[in-house]
């Protein structure tokens, strides 16, 4: 005798293990300690977040042109908007700021095609941006030709100066750093190698603040009478040399990660040293060290604020300068929050760009 076997339908999963409640249980209240930590975190957020948001946004004063507009007790963003142009352009003559804007616009216009996948002449454009564009930028900033009013480097300041220091520091230090890394690897040329080691270890061993101080205060003592060169230029050279030592060590790490077989295969094909490095080793090594290089770039970007000790006023310097203005005494929090925000925007963009670059260059295989 047989009877049909009809299994009962599956029961739905218990409500407490799926959906929102399930997620909460698993992630936030899985045991006593986690539950306590969750409750504590909620308490902290509840006490801290509303006042912060109130200060930042809801109670903040946005419109006006003097401190009289700031009455509601929140942040006084009027301070930022009133002094915005000095934060951006420093002491650049007011009716000449179009020149700085033009540099930004031209730079963005030049860089944009580099992000377009199908654009064919990326290398040529890259070379143009790195070698020709700085000349164009310098002429616009400095003036003195083509009927442009000449400016002093001491008038350059604010975000303009920050970006100038950081970009020159990065662009000039990268090739120098690569050469130093290659030099340090050159075991068959002991003189070159020890010079590179000496250079790297010297610059890595001193704090940037000392470098800037020395370039500004001590260097003129060693120069012959009457010879002097620009304070900004000295700071730039100091930053570049300092940065190149760091980049050299990052790049060296990449060079060491390339398997010996790659060097041998390039050698066996008859490639000369420079071709081997330029075509085979560096393209692979640089890809590996993108995160490290971007890390040093971000560190440098933030370190540029140190130029304040030699009297160059970058964006932070301009903010501090504005805080000394008797009309705006007492708004330092707003100033520093704003500066932090500006730096964060740039550093975060760099970080995202490096991640995108890594993904793009990943050809997905080792050996």
């Amino acid at each position, binding site marked *: 005798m047989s009877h049909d076997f009809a299994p009962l339908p599956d029961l739905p999963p218990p409500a407490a293990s799926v959906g929102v409640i399930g997620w909460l249980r698993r992630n936030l209240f899985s045991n006593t300690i986690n539950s306590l930590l969750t409750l504590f975190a909620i308490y902290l957020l509840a006490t801290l977040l509303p006042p912060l948001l109130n200060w930042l946004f809801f109670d903040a004063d946005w419109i006006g042109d003097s401190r009289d507009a700031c009455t509601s007790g929140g942040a006084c963003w009027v301070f930022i908007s009133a002094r915005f142009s000095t934060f951006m352009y420093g002491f650049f003559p007011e009716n000449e700021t179009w020149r700085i804007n033009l540099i930004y616009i031209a730079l963005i216009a030049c860089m944009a095609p580099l992000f377009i996948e199908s654009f064919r002449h990326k290398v040529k454009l890259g070379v143009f941006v790195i070698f020709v564009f700085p000349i164009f930028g310098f002429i616009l900033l400095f003036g003195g030709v083509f009927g442009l009013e000449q400016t002093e480097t001491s008038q350059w300041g604010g975000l303009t100066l920050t970006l100038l220091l950081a970009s020159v520091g990065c662009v000039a230090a990268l090739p120098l750093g690569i050469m130093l890394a290659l030099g340090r690897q050159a075991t068959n040329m002991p003189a070159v190698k020890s010079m590179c080691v000496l250079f790297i270890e010297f610059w890595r061993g001193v704090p940037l603040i000392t470098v800037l101080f020395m370039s500004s205060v001590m260097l003129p003592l060693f120069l012959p009478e009457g010879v002097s060169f620009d304070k900004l230029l000295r700071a730039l050279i100091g930053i570049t040399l300092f940065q190149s030592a760091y980049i050299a060590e990052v790049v060296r790490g990449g060079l060491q990660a390339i398997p010996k077989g*790659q060097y041998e295969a390039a050698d066996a094909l*008859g490639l*000369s040293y420079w*071709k081997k490095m330029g075509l085979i080793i560096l393209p692979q090594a640089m890809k590996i060290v993108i995160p490290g290089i971007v890390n040093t770039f971000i560190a440098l970007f933030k370190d540029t604020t140190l130029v304040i000790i030699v009297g160059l006023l970058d964006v932070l310097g301009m903010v501090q300068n504005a805080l000394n203005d008797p009309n705006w005494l007492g708004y330092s929090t707003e100033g520093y929050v704003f500066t932090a925000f500006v730096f964060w925007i740039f550093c975060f963009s760099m970080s995202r760009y490096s991640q995108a670059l890594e993904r793009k*260059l990943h050809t*997905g*295989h080792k050996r």
Partner: protein
Amino acid sequence: MTAAVPNTAADNEVMIELRGVNKWYDKFHVLKDINLQVAKGERIVVCGPSGSGKSTMIRCINRLEEHQKGQIIVDGTELTSDLRQIEQIRKEVGMVFQHFNLFPHLTVLENLALAPMWVRKMPRKEAEAIGMQYLERVKIPDQAKKYPGQLSGGQQQRVAIARSLCMNPRIMLFDEPTSALDPEMIKEVLDVMIELAESGMTMMCVTHEMGFAKTVADKVIFMDRGQIVESNPPEEFFNNPQNERTQLFLSQIIGH
């Protein structure tokens, strides 16, 4: 396939000559008084236990390793520390490695065209045409646009052989070309090498593929502890090994 096609008299030109070559790694004596002549079109198979110096020997021929004593003369040029001469010799000597050593950041075709373009100064179009030609010869023209990491080991090794051939070398060196491959891929690589041997290329090959040695070698060299112990044509070498170390080695690799 005929074993050991006899060389005609005109081919007696010596392509590689090693005279009393010695090499040390610190105190370890890797190569002891190596004497060897390879004539044009000759196919030499080098075998021996690991650590016997066979890879080191062929790596000395294109100076991936430096020898410390003796003379190495390749295609009429002596290897010294003169960089130009080394580069000159490397142009004429192709090398295939155990681990392929393809350039992972370049596509297969770019791997092939690189040396003709940058060493032989060929225009890109021409170099790529040559690359495609050799890719067809190793039977994977459809992989040209892929990256090496997307190919199987056997395919990668065939690309590596094609890459060397693109330089139109007069000599090919193989350093254990099939040792890193899965068994089912060994044949496809050996087939390419056999075809190359039949085309008259001067070849030196470090390998444990005794079938390959029997098929194509003019001479089989057995090395042990840095010395050439035995050097004979394959029939003689396999059927009537003279030295007891050779006998032991052969019994170990063929006996199972």
